C-alpha cells in the first residue's frame, strides 16, 4: 500500500522532470540538426551551426554587450543592495519601514510598467537610450533581490561578532571590512551571480530602454522573425544555457554553504 504510493510519487516526479527538460532538450537537439529549418523531422547530425557562430558578428556583439551590461549593472546593484541591507538590518531609524517598502516595490511591479515608466523618464529628460539606460533598469530590478539575499545572511549572524571586533579596537568601517563583509561574502557573491543571470536574460524591461547597441535577448527576439537565422541563435543559446546553469549551480552552492 505504502510501497505503491511511493512509486506513484516517483512517477509523478519523473514525469514533471521530463516536462521541464523536454523543451530545453529540444533546442539542444536542434543545435546539432543538419537543416536550416527548425522543424521536425530531424535531418542529420552536424556541427556547422557551431562553426557558423564565429561568423555571426552581430550576435557576438550582442553577447559582448550583454556580458558588459550584466557585469556592470550587477556590480552596482550588489554594492548598493548590500549597503541598503546593512542599513535595514543593523539600524533602527525613522522611515525604515518606508525605505524597506519602497526598495521591495520593484518585486511586485510588472516589468512592463517599470520599463514604460523609465522610458518616459528618459524621454522627458532627453536622455539618449543606450546600454546605460538598460543598466539603470536592471539595477532597479536587482536591488531588492540583493537586499533579500545579503539581508538574510546578515540577520543570520549575531551582531556580537561585530561588537567583539570593535571591542578589540577596530573602527566601524574597519569592522565592516574585516568582519561583516567577509562573513557575508558568500551571500554577496551569490547575490552578484543571481543579479548577473537576471540581467543577462532580461528582456521585458530592456526592450523599452535599449538603444542602438542591443543585448543578446533583444537580438534573439529580433531574429525570431527570420526562420533561417534560428539555428545559429539556438546554437548560441545552447552554449549560454549550459554556462548560466553552471554559474547558478555555483551561486546556489555558495548560498547553501553560507
Amino acid at each position, binding site marked *: 500500500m505504502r510501497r505503491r504510493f*511511493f512509486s506513484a*510519487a*516517483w512517477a509523478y*516526479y519523473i514525469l*514533471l*522532470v521530463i516536462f*521541464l527538460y*523536454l*523543451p*530545453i532538450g*529540444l*533546442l539542444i537537439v*536542434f543545435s546539432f540538426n543538419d537543416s536550416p529549418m*527548425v*522543424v*521536425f*523531422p530531424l535531418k542529420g547530425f552536424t556541427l556547422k551551426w557551431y562553426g557558423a557562430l564565429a561568423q555571426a558578428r552581430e550576435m557576438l556583439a550582442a553577447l559582448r554587450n550583454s556580458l558588459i551590461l550584466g557585469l556592470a549593472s550587477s556590480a552596482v546593484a550588489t554594492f*548598493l543592495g548590500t*549597503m*541598503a541591507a*546593512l*542599513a535595514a538590518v543593523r*539600524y533602527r531609524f525613522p522611515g525604515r519601514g518606508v*525605505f524597506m517598502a*519602497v*526598495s521591495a516595490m*520593484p*518585486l*511586485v*511591479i*510588472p*516589468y*512592463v510598467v*517599470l520599463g*514604460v*515608466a523609465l*522610458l*518616459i*523618464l528618459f*524621454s*522627458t529628460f532627453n536622455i539618449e537610450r543606450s546600454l546605460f539606460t538598460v543598466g*539603470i*533598469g536592471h539595477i*532597479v530590478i536587482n536591488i531588492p533581490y540583493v537586499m533579500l539575499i545579503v539581508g538574510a545572511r546578515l540577520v543570520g549572524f549575531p551582531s556580537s561578532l561585530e561588537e567583539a571586533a570593535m571591542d578589540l579596537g577596530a573602527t*566601524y568601517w574597519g569592522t565592516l571590512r574585516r568582519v561583516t563583509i567577509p562573513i557575508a561574502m558568500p551571500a554577496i557573491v551569490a547575490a552578484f551571480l543571481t543579479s548577473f543571470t537576471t540581467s543577462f536574460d532580461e*528582456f*521585458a524591461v530592456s*526592450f*523599452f530602454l535599449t538603444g542602438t547597441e542591443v543585448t543578446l*535577448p533583444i537580438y*534573439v*527576439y529580433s531574429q*525570431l522573425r527570420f526562420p533561417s537565422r534560428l539555428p545559429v541563435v*539556438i546554437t548560441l*543559446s545552447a552554449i549560454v544555457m549550459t554556462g*548560466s*546553469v553552471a554559474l*547558478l*549551480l555555483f551561486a*546556489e552552492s555558495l548560498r547553501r554553504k553560507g
Partner: protein
Amino acid sequence: MRDTRSRLLILITPPALLLIMFFVLPMLNMATFSFRQGAFGEERHMWTLAHYREFLRNTAFQRLLGRSIAMAFETSLYCIILAYPLAYFLIFRAGERRVALLTLVLVPAWTSFLLRILAWKLILSSEGLLSGLLQAVGLLAEPKPVLLYSRAAVVVALTYSWLPFVALPIFAALERIDPHLLEAAADLGCPPWRAFLRVTLPLSLPGVVAGFFFVFIPTLGEWVTPALVGGVDGIMYGNIIQDQFVRGLNWPMGALMSLVMLLAMLVLLGLLVWLLKALHVELGDLIG
C-alpha cells in the same frame, strides 16, 4: 550617537537616491505623463483628460485587463497544483536526496526565458513535436498547430516557465514544519489525511502564497509570451501597453494603461493579503 547617524546616512544615501531617481520619480512622472496630449513636439506640453475618457469608453481595454487577471490567476493555480505534490514528495518521501532532486527541478528555470518560450513554439507548431506525435497515433489527420496561437498556449508556456519558482517556496515552507507536529497530530487522533488538512496545509500556506505572488505578478504584466505563442486569441493587457509605445506611439495612453495595471496589481495584492488574514481567522475558528 552622532557617529551612528552619519554612518547610517553614508550607508543609506546611495541606494535611497538611486531608488528615488529611477523608481519613485519615474512612477510619478508616468502619472503626470498620462495627462499629456502626446509624446512629441507641441503635444508634449499640452494637458488633457482625453486619454482617460478614451480608456473609460473603450470597454475592450477593461475586458482585456480582466482577461489578463484571469489568465494570471489560472497560471498561478496550475503552478501550485503541479508544484505542491512535487514539493510534498521531495520533503516527505525523497529523504536525503531531496535537495539534489529539487535542484534538478530548478535548473530549467535558470535557462533563457525567451528560448524556453521559443521551444514551446517548436513543440506546438504544425511541424512540431506534439503535432507529429498526435499524427503518429492517429489523432490528427494532417500537420496542424496544436494549441499554438491561443490563450491556452500562453497559459501552458507560462505555467511551464514558472513551475520551478513555485516549487521552491512551497518546498521551503514544508521543510520548516517540525516533524514532531505531524506526530503530535497523529498522537491526538488524526489519520494522515486529517493531519495534512489541519497541520501540514495551514503551515505550508505561506509558501503557497509566496509561490502565488511569484507567478501572478510577472504573468499579469506579461507581453512577450503572448506575442510569441498567443496569436490574436492569446493577447494580453501587456501587449496593448507595448503597442502604444511601439506601433501606436500614443505614449500618454500607454502611461495611463500602465498606471491602471499598477493600480489593479496593488488592489489585487491588498485584497489577497486581507483575504488571507480573514481566512486565517476563519481556519482557526473552524478548529476551535
